[in-house]
């Protein structure tokens, strides 16, 4: 990996870790208050596999542009949980427009994710940019979202098994420009109670050529938010 890439990666990590950007949490924008500025959430669903996640967000009550900052950690199912796949998202969601009960929000996330199997260990830095428009009431909400998940730079480290059985001259290291990208679009909604939101989102995933599909061409997530 070249020095500029290392530097860029460090900048992004430092930015994400210490300055609280970004996440993919489903939020009822009509039901936020300064009394409940913390949001803990758990979710299960399908997103490039069967996954389970947990996250935390903190409300920055900018007057007309409330901002949630925080992070989320998720792992896919499988027999190996230790030393295997995971995804960390750090970022922010901000409400940009509020017109009566219709609201538009944007989300920007930095992603760090890992993939491991018998052949290779991949580590990727990526980004996720999405927008959501929806109708929000105190007790329920329904919206549509669309976004783009980009795998910006990926490190490949192949196993001895791969080199012995598949390809002995495989090139390990950092690969760029971007190694992948997927568009997604779908619906999200939920019910809100005093301190708890029950949320659901479903949608479709398309590769960046708008023709090919990933092996699991849809996503879905059931989540519970606890506000305090």
């Amino acid at each position, binding site marked *: 990996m070249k020095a500029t890439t290392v530097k860029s990666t460090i*900048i992004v990590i430092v930015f994400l870790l210490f300055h609280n950007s970004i996440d993919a949490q489903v939020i009822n924008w009509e039901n936020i208050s300064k009394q409940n500025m913390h949001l803990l959430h758990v979710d299960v669903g399908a997103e490039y596999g069967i996954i389970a996640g947990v996250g935390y967000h903190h409300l920055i009550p900018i007057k007309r542009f409330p901002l949630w900052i925080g992070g989320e950690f998720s792992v896919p199912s499988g027999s190996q949980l230790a030393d295997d796949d995971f995804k960390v998202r750090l970022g922010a969601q901000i409400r940009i427009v509020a017109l009566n009960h219709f609201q538009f929000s944007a989300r920007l996330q930095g992603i760090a994710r890992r993939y491991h199997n*018998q052949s290779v260990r991949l580590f990727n830095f990526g980004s996720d940019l999405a927008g959501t428009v929806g109708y929000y009431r105190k007790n329920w909400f329904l919206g549509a979202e669309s976004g783009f998940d980009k795998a910006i730079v990926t490190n490949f480290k192949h196993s001895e098994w791969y080199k012995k059985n598949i390809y002995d001259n495989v090139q390990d290291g950092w690969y*760029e420009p971007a190694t*992948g990208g997927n568009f997604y679009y779908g619906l999200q909604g939920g019910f809100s109670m005093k301190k708890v939101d029950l949320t659901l989102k479903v949608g479709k995933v398309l590769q960046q050529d708008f023709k090919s599909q990933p092996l699991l061409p849809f996503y879905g997530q059931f989540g519970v938010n606890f506000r305090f």
Partner: protein
Amino acid sequence: MKRSFRIYLAILILSLISFSCSKERYIDGPGNLVPKTVDQDVTLPSISVNGARLHSEVFGPEDSTLIICIHGGPGGDYRYMLNCKTLATKGYRVVFYDQRGAGLSQRFPKSWYKSQGSDAINKIFYDELRSVIAHYKTSTSQKVILLGQSWGAMLATGYSGKYPTDVDGLIVAEPGGLKWDDVVDYVSESRSFKLWGETLNDATYIDQFMTGKEDQHEILDYKAGLIGSTNEIVGDVGADLGNNAPSYVASRSGAVVNAASYELGQDTKPDFSTGINQFSKKVLFIYSSNNKAYPDSWATKISSAYTNKEIFKAQGVGHSGMLDQVNFWTTTMEPKIISYIQSL
């Protein structure tokens, strides 16, 4: 607060842009993640037949009985069959070739396969096999034995049904199915991975790290290879070639030919048993004890298409194990095959 947010956003955008300032290494660069094909590396052994450059090797006396090894897939390669080359030391002429778009053979766009229309299987695979045989055959009297495994066994069966007088012996190792519905059933059964399992997760989770367009062969082949090397359901544990392994390690899946073939199959519903009842010579039908998707009942059903046959159950190995496990090959499979050929 708003000002500091803008500053952070600018830093993030600048840092993302600066990724593009460093030296680029592409995932679709030839030789980076998957080995080069014969049209990219002229040092690889190859032949030009039927409009394609194929990765191919041959061992043994030039004029002796030809044994044509036909690999699985579609989209596999012949590397796992290389234990069979010891037959060359027993006096046979053993031919290996990677099918068009598979292994280290030349790649073609998906549109090319789809453009072959309703006669695609014939044009893509039977014509190619006929050309390979013609390339290596030194006389009209030279005998030809086909040895196919999995998809290769289906192809060998279809070819023998189409040209029954051109084939002197047929060895089929676990053809998934011969009629299209059986093929679909077998593929479903052999890939019925647990929803929560590691295998299925390994196949789906990678799609957020790498994406490839329809004809980006390097990317698609790499991803196909990552998920296709072992399969507990069919009992495959990875090839053990012993001293039969070549000096270089270069195995590569053919993702595009695999996807195109399956789509063509869905469109045309081919029947690989067509004409096989005209093939009167004895067929050696092999299946394995460790393939959970190939129980005795399935072997009985699929082998019923062959009128004259010897059925052999390979004990203690899986779908590819009868050929890719050197110990089993040496002690059991090679003697069985030689005995079969001598009985013809």
